[in-house]
């Protein structure tokens, strides 16, 4: 028996040895076996073959905290291609059905697949590998969320034949630290969207001390870092930094770590998704009633919070996002929103609770818009190279040099291929009917992600302790353009 077992083991060992030998041979014979070389995306199982067309994959999130935005983000890219590349959506009530007929300068754009993330880096890497390695995508638009952006930027770096236009992922590192030459972000990051808020709160509202509470992951860190850098640059002091884990439901223990309202001038919140309301409710329970004047938040502060928290939230300042609040209406914005309404009858976006609603509802919010800007960038870059992407370096160079004229402001890229953008700051106020609405108060022009040297490829990533609270010169301090009744006063 034992002899037979030994023979079994021997037989299997020999087979395993053969495996190694084969691996060695395979490696030698196939020295171009690196991921980048093995997977020729345009060729792998491509029905249109040849590699001269754009095989587009979109990375969204159908699960996780931002799963509700899946429809929004795919619709964003689809709208860009419908407006400028002749695409026709396959459905009038959903973008997830895909589109057909997209073509720029004679180059067809085919949607090969939509990736489904769940807000984790592991999953998004598997989804992008499926799009690229199985379905043969050569251009990716996405992803949506902070940690995903870093993972996809790393993937892009390891796969130089790929071209990635980031969707709306707001972590700083994906461009500043990773620096993949084929990864482009035509919008700001979490820190950029907080720019100007500190200046406004310190110099206009008279806040000297502030406590910061933010989600404990890359986007929360980045958002908090932008605010800290901005507020401290103009002379403010951050007394507390509290970081609850993403997905916390009971925030009471974190609220307990914050100072009482009489101990600081105000609070900055970068708690997102379902956590925003839960955290503010915990604050009401732990620290007493809200007074909007004492609070500021990043993009997750919105008028809907008033439904649960009451109108006391009015007075709070809100950082920027990719779009501007509804009170600002330029002809370009009107045209953009009208185009969305013409493209579909309804879109079940997140802002309408994933119920059918006019597409312009989704289009006016940053998640949709970020993916829209990526789609516009793809179209414009293809036009610039005459539809010929055979020389990838030239194609990437063109993308890096694009200056997009977009409905919510012009966007160009910095040397790390990250957007230099205008940031719209707003405030929650009561309108005549006593409803809480969002009103734009200022636009901070030309914000880039370095914050006057606070952040660079050599500094640590934004984290719980970084950046330190230091005074410094910021290029945009004092340059904010006031907005009155939705009209910039430039």
């Amino acid at each position, binding site marked *: 028996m034992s002899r037979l*077992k030994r023979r079994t083991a021997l037989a299997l060992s020999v087979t*395993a040895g053969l495996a190694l030998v084969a691996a060695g041979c395979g*490696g030698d014979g196939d020295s171009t076996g690196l991921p980048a070389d093995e997977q020729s995306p345009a060729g792998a199982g491509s029905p249109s073959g040849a590699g001269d067309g754009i095989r587009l994959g979109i990375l969204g999130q*159908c699960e996780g905290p931002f799963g509700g935005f899946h429809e929004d983000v795919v619709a964003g890219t689809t709208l860009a291609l419908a407006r400028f590349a002749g695409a026709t959506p396959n459905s009038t009530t959903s973008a997830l059905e895909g589109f057909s007929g997209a073509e720029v300068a004679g180059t067809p754009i085919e949607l090969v697949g939509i990736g489904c993330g769940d807000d984790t*880096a592991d999953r998004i890497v598997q989804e992008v590998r*499926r799009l690229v390695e199985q379905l043969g995508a050569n251009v990716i638009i996405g992803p949506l969320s902070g940690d995903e952006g870093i*993972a996809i930027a790393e993937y892009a770096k390891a796969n130089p034949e790929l071209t990635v236009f980031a969707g709306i992922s707001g972590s700083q590192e994906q461009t500043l630290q990773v620096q993949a030459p084929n990864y482009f972000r035509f919008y700001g990051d979490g820190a950029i969207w907080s720019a100007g808020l500190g200046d406004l709160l310190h110099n206009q509202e008279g806040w000297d001390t502030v406590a910061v509470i933010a989600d404990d992951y890359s986007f929360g860190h980045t958002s908090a870092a932008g605010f800290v850098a901005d507020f401290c640059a103009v002379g403010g002091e951050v007394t507390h930094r509290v970081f609850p884990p993403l997905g916390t439901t009971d925030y009471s223990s974190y609220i307990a770590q914050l100072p009482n309202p009489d101990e600081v001038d105000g609070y900055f919140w970068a708690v997102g998704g379902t956590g925003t309301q839960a955290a503010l409710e915990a604050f009401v329970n732990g620290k007493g009633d809200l007074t909007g004047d004492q609070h500021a938040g990043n993009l997750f502060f919105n008028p809907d919070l008033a439904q649960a928290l009451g109108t006391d939230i009015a007075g709070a300042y809100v950082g920027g996002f990719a779009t501007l609040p509804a009170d600002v209406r330029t002809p370009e914005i009107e045209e953009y929103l009208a185009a969305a309404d013409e493209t579909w009858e309804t879109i079940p976006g997140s802002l309408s609770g994933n119920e059918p609603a006019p597409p312009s509802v989704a289009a006016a919010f940053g998640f949709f818009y970020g993916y829209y800007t990526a789609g516009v960038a793809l179209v414009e870059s293809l036009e610039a190279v005459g539809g010929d992407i055979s020389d990838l370096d030239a194609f990437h160079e063109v993308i890096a040099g694009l200056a997009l004229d977009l409905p919510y402001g012009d966007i160009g890229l910095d040397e790390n291929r990250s957007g230099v953008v205008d940031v719209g700051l707003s405030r929650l106020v009561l309108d005549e009917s006593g409803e809480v609405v969002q009103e734009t108060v200022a636009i901070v022009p030309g914000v880039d992600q370095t914050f006057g040297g606070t952040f660079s490829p050599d500094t640590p990533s934004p984290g719980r302790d970084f950046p330190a609270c230091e005074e410094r010169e910021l290029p945009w301090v004092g340059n904010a353009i006031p907005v009155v009744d939705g009209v910039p006063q430039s």
Partner: protein
Amino acid sequence: MNLRPRLTGETLALAVLVLFLVLLPSLATAFFVNFVMTQTLILGLAAATIVFLAKYGGMTSLAQLLMFGVAGFMFGNAALEGGARGLNLGWHPWAAVGFAIVVTTLAAFVLGAIASRTTGIYFLMLTLVYGVIGYFVFAQIVEISGPGGITSIQRPDLLGPPVRLYYAGLLLSVLAYVGFRAIRRTAFGLALQGVRDDPVRMASLGFNVPLHRALAFTLAGFVAGLAGLLNVWWNGQIDPASISIGPTLILLIIAVIGGISSLGGAWLGAFVYVLVFTYLRDLPLVDRIGITEARFNTVIGVIVLAIMVLSPEGLTGIIQRLRGRLRRRAATEPAPSDGRSLPVHTTQKELGGTRS
């Protein structure tokens, strides 16, 4: 000599399977090999440690993914140099491999020693606690986990081309399979099975029951650590969410799908899991019946439920039953009028599970 049929049957089938897997890269697409099969081998290797502990030690562990993650994090911390994430020790990749394995094995020994006096549901709960605590350790102590995970993890040069990673997974899987099966015939393995069946009697015979359990847990942790290394090389990154409660349960589910009393079932379960996640959405009209990407976990749940009801021994149990039925049919072939054969019971006494 009557054992020869076993040699030519099961073992030969296994050897043919391994040979097929060796030749697979020249038969299948790069995606199937480098994505589907490599992930299958990695998850199978990790799930096999759950099966090993359950089958031979009577311990159902939920801490195996933690061991998998510890190895990944330790390798990332040791191997990376520069950048904003982790300790950035910048060691030689193979030194980092050694470091990761040593730390993982030590952690497994300590955790195994603490858990060694519990059995059954208490062991399951304790290892679940390990998994949860491990997740929070990495989520909170950002110096060793990022912050937000360790990215840009490179493979050692030897494993550069992805197909070599596949072969590494295959080699380690074969070695683990053979090794785990060989162990059951060793003095340690026999004692471990004795501990599984009757710890009191084994203790009265002078065996150190907790030590056997702790050593089995350590061995399983070591192998799970190897799978964890393959995983970070395959995935290029690891973050605390990679070892959160969801993936922890997925690994147990993989073992259950394959059959928690069958070592080979671990890889079978992993294969089914990866297939569902990769290809289910490509089936025509599948989204019309509401099975979209967001519902994959539901599909996996239904599969697990069906398997639990139809065959508690998992897919391998179903395969064994079919084989038994075929064998009986072959045996009764001279009298085909016999009609339907009686159900064949191939009940396995070695099932560990929650035995206490």
